[in-house]
């Protein structure tokens, strides 16, 4: 055990010891000062999930008064154990606004657990005392089991929400609501790192066993045997071996001798098989007006190749539904009221396809007034802001289509200066390759800021796109030297960024998911072999060594011959002093 660990251990035990009496002294009112400081902003001062921030969060913060908790070791519908609550506080819920409170001491977390429990009378009810279910150790993963799991997956109706290939694109995906009538998105089963309860096989098994309270995700403790549940787990694990995202900074553009032809998507995609995929995090555009607090996409995978004359990008991402009606463009205006998450009940909506925060009328106060937190029950269940079913029926006629854009600097930056990451700036514009997936035709925009986008005429960039089971694949192609923009050459770093629009969430214009500036690197056509240089180094060192040893030995031999006859020691030599 390292000294550092010992120190931490000591410190934590000390703080527990010190914190314990402090906790004991706090009056037994619901919550606690620590809860009020750390948690009330989202979960509400009364624990009702209606904190200040709640209207702009998705999924919504938990309402503690209902006693329904997602991640538990107890049967479906039951209360969680203290350990469950502690675990969630400490680890947080990945890819939600619930952070991991790792820096809190054990005592503080215990205090928070007590506070959370104090909001629901159920915890005081001895009849409802949670009885944890045992989660066995996971059996070894096997492909066979995964194959069987696939059958189970189809049989019990998982695809309805999670989609055929588990990408969260089931037919009912967009209509799902939780017990509070808040929209909720089915998990993308190919991205285990986003699982709220954790990415391990035990975690997934636990979710199958206990269900997720308050959501449409049921428990399969009754309907499936333990073996079947493990098969299901294995199937999910087999969908994507990664349990963490492994975000990239750089996409390597692979050299190919083939021609990049875009007549057939499946065929074109094969070209990219050898290219190393780079997975970039996508976040909401929350910097400029038209904010998207919770974009649909949370990641985009990019592969790229270049041939002697062209460069091609394969951009793939998961989308709950292909929205191919309507239109989209990067310069569509987003009304300012959509920026505001604080919503009052909307009277009605005019068009189909409501976004999470879409179409609500703005509070009259605007940005200046301290808007009252949405503390009426009606505001809470109106995040969609329209009558139920609107989203479901909106599918065929959604106003905005899905779209994607690659953003490159207009000129290769010579120093650190890059264009502003949101569509460039006046001094260094960007080159935007945009594809409206309703038309599936690439358009080039020149951007000098999100308010100054203009279409560039010409057909430099071509694209081909397709949607398959929850995944969009778009291939962009351009000549290495285009009529404008960056000229791609071997061994070159170029900043690159991506934007994704989900029409179903009414994303358009600046309301979108985006990446920051990443880099693409055009790999050299050939990687030189290290063998020859290594061999040369070895031979050179060896030669010097041998020469040195031989030299030393010969000198030594000479010396030992000379020694008896003449003194070569310099001290012995008589030298006349020259003055």
């Amino acid at each position, binding site marked *: 055990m390292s000294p550092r660990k010992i120190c931490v251990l000591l410190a934590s035990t000390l703080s527990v010891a010190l914190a314990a009496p402090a906790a004991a002294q706090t009056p037994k009112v619901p919550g606690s000062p620590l809860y009020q400081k750390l948690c009330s902003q989202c979960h509400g001062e009364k624990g009702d999930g209606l904190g200040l921030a709640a209207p702009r969060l998705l999924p919504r913060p938990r309402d503690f008064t209902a006693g329904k908790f997602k991640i538990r070791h107890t049967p479906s519908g039951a209360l969680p154990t203290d350990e469950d609550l502690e675990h969630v506080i400490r680890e947080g819920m990945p890819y939600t606004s619930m952070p991991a409170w790792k820096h809190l001491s054990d005592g503080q977390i215990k205090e928070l657990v007590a506070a959370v429990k104090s909001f629901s009378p159920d915890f005081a009810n001895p009849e409802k005392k949670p009885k944890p279910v045992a989660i066995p150790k996971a059996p070894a993963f096997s492909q066979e089991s995964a194959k069987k799991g696939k059958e189970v997956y189809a049989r019990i109706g998982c695809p309805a929400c999670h989609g055929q290939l588990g990408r969260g694109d089931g037919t009912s995906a967009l209509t799902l609501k939780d017990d509070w009538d808040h929209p909720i998105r089915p998990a993308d089963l190919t991205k285990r790192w986003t699982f709220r309860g954790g990415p391990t096989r035990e975690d997934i098994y636990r979710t199958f066993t206990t269900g997720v309270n308050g959501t449409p995700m049921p428990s399969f403790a009754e309907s499936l045997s333990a073996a079947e549940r493990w098969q299901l787990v294995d199937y999910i694990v087999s969908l994507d071996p990664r349990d963490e995202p492994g975000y990239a900074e750089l996409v390597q553009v692979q050299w190919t001798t083939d021609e990049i032809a875009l007549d057939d998507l499946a065929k074109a995609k094969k070209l990219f098989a050898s290219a190393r995929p780079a997975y970039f*995090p996508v976040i909401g555009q929350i910097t400029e007006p038209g904010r998207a607090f919770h974009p649909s996409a949370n990641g985009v995978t990019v592969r790229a190749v270049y041939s002697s004359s062209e460069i091609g990008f394969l951009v793939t991402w998961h989308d709950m539904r292909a929205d191919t009606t309507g239109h989209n463009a990067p310069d569509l205006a987003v009304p300012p009221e959509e920026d505001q998450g604080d919503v009052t009940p909307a009277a009605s909506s005019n068009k189909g396809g409501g976004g999470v925060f879409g179409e609500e009328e703005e509070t009259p106060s605007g940005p200046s007034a301290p808007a009252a937190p949405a503390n009426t029950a009606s505001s809470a269940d109106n995040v969609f802001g329209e009558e139920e079913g609107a989203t479901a029926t909106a599918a065929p006629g959604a106003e905005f289509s899905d779209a994607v854009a690659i953003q490159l600097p207009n000129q290769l930056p010579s120093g650190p200066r890059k264009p502003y990451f949101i569509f460039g700036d006046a001094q260094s514009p960007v080159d935007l390759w945009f594809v409206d997936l309703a038309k599936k035709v690439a358009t080039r925009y020149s951007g000098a800021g999100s308010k100054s986008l203009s279409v560039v005429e010409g057909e430099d960039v071509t694209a081909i796109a397709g949607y398959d089971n929850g995944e969009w694949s778009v291939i962009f192609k351009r000549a290495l030297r285009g009529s404008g923009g960056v000229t791609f050459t071997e061994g070159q770093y170029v900043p690159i960024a991506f934007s994704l629009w989900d029409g179903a969430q009414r994303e358009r214009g600046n309301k979108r998911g985006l990446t920051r500036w990443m880099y693409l690197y055009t790999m050299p056509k050939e990687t030189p072999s*290290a063998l020859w240089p290594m061999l040369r180094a070895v031979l050179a060192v060896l030669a010097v060594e041998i020469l040195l040893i031989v030299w030393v030995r010969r000198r030594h031999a000479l010396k030992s011959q000379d020694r008896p006859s003449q003194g070569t020691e310099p001290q012995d030599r008589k030298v006349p002093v020259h003055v």
Partner: protein
Amino acid sequence: MMPIVWWVALLLLAVQFALWKLRAGTFLWTLASWFSIYLFLHFGFTVPVPQSVISLYLGITTLATVAYVTSDRERLRNFTAPLVRLCIEPGRRPVLYGVAVLLPALAAFGTWRSMNVPLEAPAFGRTIHPAPPDSITVHDKPFNLITLENPYRKLEKSDPAAFARHLANGKRVFYQNCVYCHGDAMRGDGMYAHGLNPIPTNFAEGGTLALLQESFLFWRVSKGGPGLPEEGGPWDTAMPAWESFLTEDEMWDVILFLYDYTDQRPRAREVKE
């Protein structure tokens, strides 16, 4: 907890002491000193020294070592004696062969490593806290940043109730806007922090807020990433120019809240003589 730097320094001193105690020969001593300097350059700094500078310094060290060893005949003999023995004495053959194999192997490894450097995106430094301009204009109102104070700071003493209202408003502003990047506990770990570079500022550690004046924060909050000077690398920073979302009061309130939540005080203005 002692930083690694001190451990390294201590270790090197201990080695020197041990060599002195053991009356180590010139060869051993020189070699140990050379490697000590190498280790010190590599590990002796909390922020690692770039390889190019290490090579430069090691080159100078090597030159100096050669000068030291050869500047006296006795010293030179002492230095070379172990090497000569290694080359000559039959008893040391295994060691000699070992060295003879090891050195080319090291050279080959070095060559291989230099040719297999993992690919990295080019990175450029940016100034984290660039100097603010003298004055800015927010919502068409000029502000002199040199003299600017938080207008509500004085309420802390004069009118605690009003101050609390401002704090509450600041809290609302923070949790509706800033929390996505700066995080619930202001540790710079909001739900979108993983997608950003530069990463959002961590206000919870003492190295940021406490070193800044509120006028600096007002500049940063109102003008955001786009308002940074060139050296601050504004092109990557996702910090919005909050003047397009928030009123002046809201910005001051959120600044009050930042200090209050993290239990820090703004840096006092230096009194100019």
